[in-house]
């Protein structure tokens, strides 16, 4: 078994990779998103953003309240193109 700790499972990001990016100066969740694709997979950050925020707190000494979560993007749960394309009367 691997001893890697995965923070973002959709994008395969480990604790180590995130900590390294923080050390490189990406000190907000938005920047980690741009740099690593953190939270950009199918779960839209549900699984990873709070964990990544925790790492940011530990690394920067900030409290969770000081670290803003990226805006939630619709449609919030995955919806198929076919469903979105359908008209009311179909």
């Amino acid at each position, binding site marked *: 078994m691997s001893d890697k700790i995965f923070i973002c499972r959709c994008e395969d990001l480990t604790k180590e990779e995130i900590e390294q990016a923080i050390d490189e100066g990406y000190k907000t969740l938005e920047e980690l998103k741009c*740099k690593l694709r953190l939270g950009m997979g*199918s779960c839209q950050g549900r699984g990873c953003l709070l964990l990544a925020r925790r790492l940011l707190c530990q690394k920067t000494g900030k409290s969770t309240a000081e670290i803003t979560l990226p805006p939630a993007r*619709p*449609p919030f749960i995955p919806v198929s193109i*076919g469903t979105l*394309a359908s008209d009311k009367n179909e």
Partner: protein
Amino acid sequence: MNEIVDHKADVVIIGGGVNGCSLAYQLAKRGMKIVLCEKGHLCSGATGRCGAGIRQQWSTRENSELAIKSIQIFERLEKELGQDIGLRQGGYLIVVHDKSDMKQAKRNVDMQKALGLDVSILTPDEIVDIVPILDVKGMHAVGATFCPTDGHVDPFKTTHAYAQAAIRYGAQLYKFTKVVGIKKKKKRIDSVLTDRGKISTDFVVNAAGAWSKQIAEMVGVKLPNKPFRKEILVTERVKPLFDAMVISFKDGIYFSQQEEGQILGGIPIPNEKPGYLTAPTFDFLHHMAKTLARYAPPLKHVNVIRQWTGYYDVTPDALPIIGEVEGIKGFIQCNGFSGHGFMLSPMVTKILTAYIADGRTPRILKRLSLSRFKGKKIVREVSVVG
């Protein structure tokens, strides 16, 4: 990356998108002292929200020329910066819908070929050879134009690579730093005021994207640019289905498959008004899904996971405003890209580097100057999507 340490610079660049960071890198490499101010994080504006396409097929010679030379630079950028920029050249397939569309397409292709571009007109059968999931009837295609060297570059990787290279050459990049004023003295730039202090400088580059208009107003310059909200969506990852970006000027749609497998695309909502609107709309989601399902029926089963918005910084002719403003020495525009700032950035910033670092005035600067809007007939770029 916090407090301003040095209050003197040769050039202050406003805006940490791809253009600002590319210019910071090139000027710093020439030995100039560069400070870049970005009000958010790097790529927080249009760069980080764009469709990531790079295209050379335009209707105006200026855009085609800039784009062709830009792609040549993108092709060697990975080596130059020592970092992956995610370049993939799967081509752009531009759908042609009817006779008048075909007339314009032929005119464009003739002009592009004269510039040396490898571009051709496809039959409906050839369209499906290149992108098998397309439904020629559904998208009402009578043909297409195709350029195999068009494609994609990753905007985040590219901008971060430029930024890191700029820092290596001594540039100072200040994120979360807002410019609050620009001072001039006797018709020349004197200094830039930020919320972290003042920086004296000879040059200010306005690369602030959709906020360029406000920056220009700080020195009394009026830009004709208008911000337009543009929407875009991305799906879950699916197996590799196609390499080309598919676009249509008539429907305004563009979509492609990204390196990781997501389908990403956008379309304008009819009658969208200019303004700083940020909320994503359901109208877009519906209109985009409907059009996409018509173009590529197999995508009906793919799930959309996210939609977001960004701005096009739109000029009256959809060409960028590049170069020094008449009457204010040192005030340089690098904005008004009208949705094409990422793909044109390599050449535009090279031209500005020639102007700022070498005092040369490449010919195209005249055609792209702010003064072109004064009383002259405007030749509009018509090959626009999104």
